[in-house]
């Protein structure tokens, strides 16, 4: 059985990735399973300068989902390169750095630093973080801004470039096409949905930032639809991210046209879920007698 997939210049031994911000740097999960079995690890959102993130409270539980407003807390790209990367370089899998920024220049400087680092196999451009005042989602919801960003980043970064789109838009296909036109190697569909929750006893918002990003099974039907829509218009690979908690969910995304999937919030409920999902997919292919996983990518039929 062949379950390898290609994302740009990357060969993934399997289509299971862990989503940015939900898997730390892999180390937190070492007691539960070996991150080396993954197709790739995607790091927490990384910015040029260190960031403290938002005030507490940063999360709230919702029906089949959670809101988060972490706000890109991280120690900056230099710390990542010098302190974190050496510790995780041992994983025998691809390391993808999720990059965020306030301004186009931040992104460009960050990716240019990463461009020279061997062990960083790809960059996932986060233009869709709903939890920071400046930067983040503004790029992912504004066609012209995104275009400018992509052009400058693409000039600077030669390795595999993945763009993580925002689902908070009217027509995600337009953004997908833009990424393809501007030579991104792949797109991730999608980040979290802007949402909120209120504590009716205190009458206060549950998040310090008022709004935050909704993730988890609740959003799966919407993101699945977006993956399907994007798959109808672009040729570059699509990486799905949204509400996957079982191998069945992962298969749905592959059938809708995703070449790989990211496991996000589910890591919090079962830290070895990625391993379970990987095995579930293998079983499914075996049972359906499918020799190559590529046969099911985009294989969905109409009713």
């Amino acid at each position, binding site marked *: 059985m062949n379950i390898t997939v290609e994302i740009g210049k990357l060969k993934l031994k399997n289509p299971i990735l862990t989503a940015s*911000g*939900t*898997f*730390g740097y892999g180390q*937190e*999960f070492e*007691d*539960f399973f070996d991150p080396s079995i993954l197709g790739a690890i995607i790091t*927490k959102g990384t910015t040029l300068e260190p960031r*403290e*993130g*938002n*005030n*507490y*409270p*940063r*999360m*709230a*539980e919702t*029906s*089949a*989902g*959670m809101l*988060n407003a*972490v706000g890109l*807390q991280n120690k900056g790209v230099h710390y990542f390169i010098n302190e974190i990367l050496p510790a995780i370089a041992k994983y025998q899998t691809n390391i993808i750095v999720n990059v965020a920024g306030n301004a186009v220049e931040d992104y460009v400087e960050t990716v240019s630093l990463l461009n020279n680092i061997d062990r960083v196999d790809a960059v996932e451009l986060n233009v869709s973080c709903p939890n920071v005042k400046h930067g983040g989602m503004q790029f992912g919801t504004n066609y012209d801004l995104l275009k400018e960003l992509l052009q400058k980043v693409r000039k600077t970064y030669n390795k595999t470039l993945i763009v993580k789109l925002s689902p908070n838009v009217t027509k995600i296909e337009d953004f997908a096409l833009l990424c393809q036109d501007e030579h991104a190697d792949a797109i991730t569909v999608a980040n979290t949905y802007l949402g909120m929750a209120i504590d009716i006893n205190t009458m206060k918002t549950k998040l310090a930032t008022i709004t935050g990003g909704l993730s*988890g*099974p609740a959003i799966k039907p919407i993101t699945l639809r977006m993956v399907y829509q994007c798959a109808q218009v672009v040729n570059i690979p699509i990486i799905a991210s949204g509400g996957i908690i079982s191998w069945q969910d992962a298969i749905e995304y592959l059938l809708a046209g995703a070449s790989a999937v990211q496991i996000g919030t589910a*890591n*919090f*409920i*079962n*830290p*070895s879920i990625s391993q379970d999902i990987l095995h579930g997919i293998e079983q499914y292919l075996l049972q359906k007698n499918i020799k190559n996983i590529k046969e099911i990518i985009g294989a969905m039929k109409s009713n």
Partner: protein
Amino acid sequence: MNNKKIHTQLIILDNEEINSSHFRLHIELPADCPHIQPGQFAEFYVPPTLQSFLRIPLSIHFVSDKEIQFLIQIKGEGTQYLKTLQKGDKIDTILPLGKGFTIPTNKKVALIGGGCGIAPLLFLSDQLAANNNLQHIFLGFRNYEQVMLIDDFKKYGEVIVSTDDGSFGDKGVITDIFEKKLEKFDYVYSCGPTIMINKVIEICKHNNLYCEVSLETLMGCGIGACLCCAISTKNGNLRACIDGPVFDSNLINNLNY
């Protein structure tokens, strides 16, 4: 020392009712159980409802050679579910998580607990006793109905109890009692409501006492991966679940949640 985390199904040995809103789960100590420090916690899986679907963090209340205990307050659907567990049932558990309390030897120490915040203090008290420390244990409750586990603590040291309404023990909040009975403690430990913790930190700072506090925050993952459990400290935002939940109180900026 084995300090790995384990993710496993544990067997309920007993579900002990403490009062109308609290119960104590006795769970079989797994064979391969890593060393557990007082102040560490576990994450339980409960079946998702329309209200919640993440795990539930609970402090380790007591550890014996046969079992691990949890003291639980019924709050929402998750803890209600835990209340229904019976002898023989299994529960999906990740443990031990986080950093625990420092255990010195031959010192004079104070423990200050409020309400269900006394949960991690019992195991702490047990381990402090095992290391020959002299303990003053301050426990505060809302009223007589809420008072619990006094006898469990009496084994380890002098117990001072207060209730807000004076229906049992001294009248008043326990931090006031603590302040009145202040001595030159080498270590002060505290766990309880935010308002109490802030007060304990203030008293200790003012009186130059070393203090460790256990902090509860909302947690996404409990293992350091999500950064939802931010605690504002002199060293920036730290994670309650892995850098804590026990912190040196000197590090902590005023808790405002």
